[in-house]
């Protein structure tokens, strides 16, 4: 036994030394995209399809010849939706000159937001992250393109108001917010409170401890208070659990509205008929099995055996979210190339410019295969979000189908809130708002 120990110790030491030397490897002429994903843990059912879509789009770009002949290289790093592990992944992949980083976790976004400006890496958070980071004058390196939680919350309330027949009808009503007790779940609260103040409805906050497998107590509260509507702000196992609990409590699923992270096939398919009538807001796209991009994906990758993940999930909600997230990042790189030189590898700083001056017109989106899936996005120095379009889709027992027209978050409510919160952040960090001159650079 002693002999093994003697040999083991040097071996372990050597191994540690090796691990330290490793991360400084590839530095090539490829455009590097880090993929922070989670395919294990309680959030894996939802993290996996997103990662599959993200990676598939990168593969597709390469199949089509790259961005002006610049190939994409990528590396996945498993975070398990854990903030400390995400930071480690970020640090590990940072040495490879990443174009942008997509943490797919609001907690990790908060941590990386503090590091990215120093490292000069843009943080792209399509549909999550800090809502106030839409203010590009304060958050120079954050890009919550296509929508923030406040957009989601505002349009959900709009949909509810429409169902009731106008904002004035909400007076005296009671809306419950069942949320994941983490920065992710708490993000919408300021906006919903603001709306509750101006329209006179009562807001009931119902936190669910992460990861959300135990919700009996929460739904008991729902049963007692009987709110007129329930807004579900969940992710991972929390969503399906909530819907099962709603079914068990007898709360009508028609009166439940989920955020766009609680509106995918994975969340409802276990309950199937029990989830019938459940609504969720979508960040532009829903489940789009007939979209051009999905057909291309199937033809170019999956039929040749090069796709990521199961073929059946291509075109589902979270898969498409991954595709869309990757596409926005890639278009940012393309925009940067148009200014800094086509066919060159862009640095993080250059990609930041590209993301800030993104102009995805309908024609461009259609050409990319997103016809009918997405609406135009155009960002600027002041506006890092670029679009606030959403729709509502409803689960009919077998599939998601759209039940509303396009909606847009109300600027009147959103803008002052974004500015006030961003100003508070700037004051805390002693940052100055960017001036017109800084916007040019």
């Amino acid at each position: 036994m002693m002999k093994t120990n003697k040999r083991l110790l040097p071996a372990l030491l050597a191994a540690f030394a090796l691990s330290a030397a490793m991360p400084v490897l590839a530095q090539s002429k490829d455009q590097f995209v880090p993929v922070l994903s989670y395919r294990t843990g309680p959030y894996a059912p939802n993290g996996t399809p997103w990662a599959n879509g993200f990676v598939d789009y990168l593969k597709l770009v390469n199949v089509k010849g790259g961005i002006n002949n610049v190939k994409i290289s990528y590396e996945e790093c498993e975070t398990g939706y854990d903030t400390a592990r995400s930071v480690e992944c970020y640090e590990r992949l940072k040495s490879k000159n990443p174009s942008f980083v997509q943490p797919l976790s609001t907690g990790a976004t908060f941590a990386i937001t503090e590091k990215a400006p120093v490292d000069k890496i843009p943080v792209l958070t399509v549909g999550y992250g800090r809502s106030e980071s839409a203010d590009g004058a304060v958050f120079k390196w954050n890009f919550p393109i296509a929508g923030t939680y406040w957009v989601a919350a505002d349009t959900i309330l709009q949909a509810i108001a429409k169902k009731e027949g106008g904002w004035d009808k909400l007076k005296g009503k009671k809306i419950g917010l069942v949320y994941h007790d983490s920065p992710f779940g708490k993000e919408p609260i300021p906006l919903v409170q603001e709306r509750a103040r101006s329209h006179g409805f009562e807001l009931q906050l119902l936190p669910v401890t992460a990861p959300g497998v135990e919700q009996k107590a929460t739904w008991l509260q729902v049963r007692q208070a009987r709110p007129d509507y329930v807004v579900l702000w969940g992710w991972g196992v929390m969503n399906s659990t909530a819907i099962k609990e709603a079914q068990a409590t007898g709360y009508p699923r028609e009166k439940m509205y989920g955020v766009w992270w609680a509106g995918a096939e994975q969340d409802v398919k276990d309950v199937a008929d029990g989830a019938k009538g459940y609504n969720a807001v979508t960040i532009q796209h829903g489940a789009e099995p007939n979209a051009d991009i999905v057909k291309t994906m199937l033809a170019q990758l999956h039929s040749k055996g090069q796709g990521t993940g199961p073929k059946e999930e291509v075109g589902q909600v979270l898969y498409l979210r991954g595709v869309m997230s990757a596409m926005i990042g890639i278009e940012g790189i393309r925009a940067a190339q148009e200014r800094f030189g086509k066919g060159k590898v862009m640095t993080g700083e250059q990609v930041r410019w590209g993301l800030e001056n993104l102009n995805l017109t309908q024609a461009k989106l259609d050409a990319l295969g997103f016809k009918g899936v997405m609406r135009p996005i155009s960002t600027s120095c002041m506006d890092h979000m670029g679009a606030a379009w959403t729709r509502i889709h409803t689960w009919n027992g077998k599939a998601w189908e759209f039940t509303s027209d396009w909606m847009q978050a109300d600027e009147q409510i959103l803008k002052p809130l974004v500015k006030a919160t961003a100003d508070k952040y700037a004051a805390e960090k002693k940052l100055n708002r960017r001036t017109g001159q800084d916007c040019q650079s």
Partner: protein
Amino acid sequence: MFYRENGQFKTSYQADQQIFPIAQDRVFVVLLLLVAFAGVPFFASDYMFRAILIPFVIMAMAALGVNILVGYCGQISLGSGAFMAVGAYGAYNFFARVPDMPLLPALLLGGLCATAFGILFGLPSLRVRGLYLAVATLAAQFFADWMFLRVKWFTLDTPSGSVSVSNLQIFGFPLDSDVSKYLFCLSLLVVIALLAKNLVRGAIGREWMAIRDMDVAAAVIGIRPMYAKLSAFAVSSFIIGVAGALWAFIYLGSWEPGAFSVDQSFRLLFMVIIGGLGSIMGGFLGAAFIIVLPIFLNQFLPMLAGLAGVEISTTVVSHTELMIFGALIVWFLIVEPHGLAKLWAIGKQKMRVWPFPY
């Protein structure tokens, strides 16, 4: 032969009572400190600092604190994550609320908050022992989780409940580079480790060990159990609290209560069990094992597979990582139940008798 104290005569009490009575140990420690302070900053990369060295130094400090309570005083605690959280949020509140609060006092005040919290949740230790105490300290963990999630005052009413710090300075020097952060944490660790080492070999440390080995016998020979147990809780939670504040301020920069969940408590307990209960060295070895090994496996497995010509997915890597890690813990506990520190001691003994083992 390499490590023999023959011929090293002590001619004064002072010489006999020093921390490292053997000359080779002194040389080793001085060399180690030299390498850590002067050598490492020259060859370590950004990644090394941020992802491995800084977390290792901070967690080693936390493990040191846990070891005082669990290893020296024998009070099993599952509330270490809570003590870290109290340290972090305490320091944050002092730092953010008091204008022009310097960093170091804020960290130490955070540690003092943890001390108060630790003493409060150490009170059950006067009545319950062993596993029952572990359950009682688990209450501290759940209480802290609840407090920092739901009491908005602690997080300065930030809408998302996530708080962040920036513009850290120490005596006018900005703590922005990785090297400066590393050196700052390391200096604090050295001071605290020295303090802890002196405490545990002094009268109070002996009281703790007496309580650990048999509290009734200790009480009979005149050791006050209440004083001994609560002082262990106080010292331990102070160190853990400072480590928690460093973890939040220096390593994460922006954090939420989830960073100090019950997982963190378990990790710290594993660190001291695997490193070696009742040994300062054990805390360091355990922290290295728990912090560095998963990261190492996570990078080493794909490389190994790459050498063999197969590409494995991150899912497989992450599952394999957990399996190997778990297996290694079990293996270590079977082969050496006294932890890595015991292996270290065995190694020293072997060097001492080499080349004539008996």
